[in-house]
């Protein structure tokens, strides 16, 4: 069983090696876990997982391999009263009620009342779907998730399990947000991006300046005079603007690899998201589009002209999304996309656009030509040569 566990982990892409496996066995022998499944879970996690991004994958594999080993849950089948998490309720409110219903309830008793009603409704549902002796979280699927009420499917059961013994913590999958799932095989990209590095002498004078020392010592007639200078450091600042959604779905993997390669290569790297064409705002996080917006003007104010801007997008859209005010597919934009593109290229001296669409197909899409034009020809395909061209353009 244990051997199949490590194989399952490796199959799921966790870089667990034999060293770590032996360490786990050693710790078991040393009696750290003492025949307690929860402790074994914690121990296995601390020995086999080395990065919080892998925690979620680990939880899933652990759940699959050790399913059925856990002590039976409250066998009487009684429903344990539980509190439903607030924020979760709030999120669900929109899905459970129509707009009119919401308005009606809100007229009756405001938001609190709305929450109360929703809580009741959910509680009823829960009992109906429960029936047996298992709680929501224990099967890793929630009754709501199955019916499409909760797209995230994470938080369900979390509040509830706290009142019981901490069985099956791994099924709660609390680390899901940390899993970026992008394969890190992008070493070639990393090397290409390395060309972007610019070294500058900055900070404290720590390095021996050999020539300066020899010169100064000679001038002193042989009495030692040490000269120091600051070390060279990578001083490149990169602003990565990623197109997300729509036609970019096919290219998400490529952009993710680029992103994971870029992250380790620069000291300053900021990434923002847009859809199709940049307008008056960007998103800070792809998941929470509506909540975390940054006005483009603020971006221009915050990051000086010495930042290098890299757009990543397929630039494939209807031409009016670039040329006309109000052309955006998502909202009403006062000013046309090309105005914003011009503003960005005017502020940042070094701008490039990476396009995952193969270069020989660029001619078939009018909008690619428009963006090319706005960027004065600094669009490059997402290939190694393209990256090198980009590095040159950003120098």
């Amino acid at each position: 069983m244990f051997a199949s566990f490590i194989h399952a982990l490796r199959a799921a892409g966790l870089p667990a090696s034999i060293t770590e496996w032996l360490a786990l066995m050693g710790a078991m022998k040393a009696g750290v876990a003492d025949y307690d499944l929860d402790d074994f879970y914690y121990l296995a996690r601390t020995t086999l997982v080395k990065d919080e991004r892998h925690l979620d994958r680990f939880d899933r594999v652990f759940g699959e391999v050790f399913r059925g080993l856990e002590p039976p849950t409250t066998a009487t089948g009684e429903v344990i009263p539980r509190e439903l998490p607030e924020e979760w309720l709030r999120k669900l409110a929109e899905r459970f009620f129509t707009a009119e219903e919401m308005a009606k309830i809100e007229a009756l008793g405001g938001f609190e009342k709305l929450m109360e009603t929703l809580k009741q409704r959910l509680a009823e549902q829960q009992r109906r779907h429960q029936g047996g002796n298992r709680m929501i979280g224990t099967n890793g699927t929630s009754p709501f998730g199955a019916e499409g009420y909760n797209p995230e499917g994470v938080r369900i059961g979390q509040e509830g399990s706290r009142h019981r013994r901490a069985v099956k913590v791994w099924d709660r999958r609390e680390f899901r947000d940390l899993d970026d799932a992008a394969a890190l095989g992008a070493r070639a990209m990393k090397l290409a991006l390395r060309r972007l590095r610019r070294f500058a002498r900055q900070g404290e004078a720590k390095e021996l300046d050999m020539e300066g020392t020899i010169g100064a010592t000679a001038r002193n007639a042989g009495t030692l005079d040490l000269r120091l200078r600051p070390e060279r450091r990578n001083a490149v600042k990169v602003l990565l603007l990623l197109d997300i959604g729509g036609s970019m779905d096919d290219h998400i993997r490529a952009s993710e690899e680029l992103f994971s390669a870029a992250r380790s290569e620069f000291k300053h790297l900021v990434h923002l998201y847009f859809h199709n064409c940049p307008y008056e705002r960007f998103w800070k996080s792809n998941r929470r589009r509506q909540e975390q917006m940054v006005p483009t003007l603020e971006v221009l104010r915050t990051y000086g002209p010495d930042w290098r801007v890299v757009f990543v997008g397929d630039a494939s859209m209807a031409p009016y999304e670039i040329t006309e005010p109000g052309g955006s597919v998502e909202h009403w934009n006062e000013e046309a996309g090309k105005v914003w593109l011009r503003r960005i290229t005017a502020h940042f001296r070094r701008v490039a656009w990476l396009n995952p669409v193969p270069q020989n197909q660029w001619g078939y899409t009018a909008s690619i030509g428009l963006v090319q034009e706005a960027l004065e020809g600094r669009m490059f395909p997402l290939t190694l040569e393209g990256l090198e061209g980009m590095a040159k353009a950003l120098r």
Partner: protein
Amino acid sequence: MRKFRSTERYVATRELEVAVNAAIALQRPLLVKGEPGTGKTVLAQEIARSLGLPLIEWHIKSTTKAQQGLYEYDAVSRLRDGQLGDPRVRDISNYIVKGKLWEAFESETPVVLLIDEIDKADIEFPNDLLLELDRMQFHVYETRQTVVAKHRPIVVITSNNEKELPDAFLRRCFFHFIRFPDRETMERILQAHYPNLRAELAREALEVFFRIREVNELKKKPATSELLDWLKLLMIEDMPPEALRSNDLKVALPPLYGALLKNEQDVHLFERLAFLSRARRP
């Protein structure tokens, strides 16, 4: 070896206890990550305290080199001494300055060694310490001696995730990710730090605190250490709990917010939220 448990001053979850005990039992370094302010550095201090061992702290900066943890050969002062004809110059060991790791290896009792914020250093830094942390020994070229640890120290390494650590290094460590404490744990933490804190004040303060953390746009979400600082201030000012309650976050900033919000954009954000909700009110 005794086992690590939560102390009256430090609340450790079961998962953290298991991780620490595994690291102690197998004498491997423990790598601790987590949001800033969740007690990564304090963990090492508490391990030392609860096991009754001395603590050696090595704080890493961007200029720190791995070699500095072992020893440094102060060639410059030897050169100066040589020019002045100082007799000390004959013995090279006069110019070997011991580092924190040497100190830990040399100690007569086992020690806890904290390598704090390892991600601040250069990307090659962890690689340079692989052998030293694995075998707990290193060689001093200048004096041709090998320093071997008398007792393998308990090594705690913290990281804020500013840089990715190399695989070879990770393979030699145990890893624990400190999650942000939930409300229950947070109440225990408050109890542990301020045993005579009034329950009402604690409740109201936690209410405000978790509501602030809900705001997603914050640049730096306040963490445990900020909460503790803030409560201390509230206690010094003898703030009545009502002052927090009447204080709907949407109407104004909480009193003494400076302890919770650490940058001006965040403060502005709250002022804006407050302004918007006032404007919306009838």
